[in-house]
């Protein structure tokens, strides 16, 4: 077991005016771990995710990422080119709405190939082979490589978004409600796929969701947020089965049992 966390978040704080969106959040994420962040709408979980992923500037705190070349570095103090390079290579961001994460006017193959071309791939046949391989891995018929995502179903679009993100072999994946808005059966297929990819690629992931069933199936660890604060954190099944905090108890007891 390595002694360096892949990601170490320290004292992250972000306000919108007088409103505290997330306050003094700290945690470590280790290689291969999947962490869920749950909480009701407005609890600050998406703000936290965007601050960590460098899409939003926090007011205070550090986001230390264990870079391949130089070891742990504060992402927030990196130059913009470095940060953007990181988000194209070692990081991936899966949006809730596939439309936000895909180029709808570009073929499936082009969508998957973009990240490869962005890091310098210049051989058409190689790029295409990678795209075919990834479409297969996310269970999209490679015969549809030249179709645009507009012709895909919601679940396929989401899987395409995942392929597009994972093609460069990232080490850390951010997911914002990855199964939101999908049919239950499609959700299950996506969760299964994600779990397999996380395991086979040794990915670390941070998943923001309000769906406790999703974190139970995907996340090793769980962080519960309320009004911008982390109220409880621990092993997923421990937090869900033996919640300590009043809010977590309320949250868990509010879920419909199926």
């Amino acid at each position, binding site marked *: 077991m390595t002694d360096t966390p892949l990601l170490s978040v320290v004292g992250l704080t972000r306000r919108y005016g007088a409103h505290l969106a997330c306050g003094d959040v700290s945690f470590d994420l280790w290689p291969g771990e999947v962490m869920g962040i749950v909480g009701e709408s407005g609890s600050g979980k998406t703000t936290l995710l965007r601050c960590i992923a460098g899409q939003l500037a926090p007011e205070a705190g550090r986001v230390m990422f264990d870079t391949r070349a130089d070891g742990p570095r504060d992402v927030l103090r990196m130059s913009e080119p470095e940060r953007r390079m990181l988000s194209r290579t070692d990081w991936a961001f899966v949006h809730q709405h596939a439309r936000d994460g895909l180029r709808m006017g570009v073929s499936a193959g082009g969508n998957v190939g973009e990240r490869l071309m962005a890091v310098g791939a210049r051989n058409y046949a190689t790029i295409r082979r990678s795209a075919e391989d990834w479409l297969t891995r996310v269970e999209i018929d490679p015969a549809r490589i030249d179709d645009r995502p507009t012709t895909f179903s919601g679940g396929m679009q989401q899987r395409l978004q995942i392929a597009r993100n994972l093609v460069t072999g990232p080490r850390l994946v951010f997911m914002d409600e990855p199964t939101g808005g999908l049919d239950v059966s499609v959700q*299950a297929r996506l969760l299964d796929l994600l779990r397999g990819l996380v395991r086979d690629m040794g990915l670390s992931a941070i998943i923001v969701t309000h769906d406790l069933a999703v974190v139970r199936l995907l996340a090793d660890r769980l962080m519960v947020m309320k009004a911008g604060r982390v109220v409880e954190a*621990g092993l997923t099944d421990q937090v869900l089965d*033996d919640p300590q905090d009043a809010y977590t*108890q309320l949250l868990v007891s509010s879920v419909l049992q199926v």
Partner: protein
Amino acid sequence: MIEIENLSKTFTLHNQGGAVLRVMEGAALRVAPGECVALTGASGAGKSTLMRMIYGNYRAASGRIRIGGLDIVQAAPREVIRLRRETLGYVSQFLRVLPRVPTLDVVAEPLRALGASQDAARDRAAELLKRLNIPAPLWQLSPTTFSGGEQQRVNIARGFAHPFPALLLDEPTASLDAANRAVVLSLIDEAKARGAAIIGIFHDEAARARVCDREIDVSAFAPKAAA
């Protein structure tokens, strides 16, 4: 292998006026490698609670649970995750799986998590499913649609796929017919023979008598002052 000292458990019900339930105090036990210990006591005595605490599923109020040198009560989540992956297996009463995943892969999963190849993990899974009399045509289906007894056997196959040095078994023989019950008991015997430390809850007295070396009545760990 498993050492428990002075373990206590309380539940604080914040949404019911902050009521504090003390459910266990001063629990202690030891299980050596190759030993199988049964937890006994009436319903509600705390057998499952204790077992869940050993697995790290419930948080202990105080005390120590050492498994292979790691104190679960104090351990960081990632240490518990690793312990569960490599050292500590758990066969619960209920099968909780992702819908759609074929039975064969459900059983192979613990081996895949340890880095086994898909083929090797599936071979082992197939061997166990066959032994537990799950018909091969069902292996490619999700166990969510199976009968209670079939789910139970899938759960057992999954729990025994990796040779865990420590095993927790919650009613492994409940709702099984005689033939399958015998298979499960021999699996337990084999685990003991290879040195696994096992803690089990068995309502099935005959089974308990056959595989368990000792019994521990958890009623003894009830809080003394509790009403």
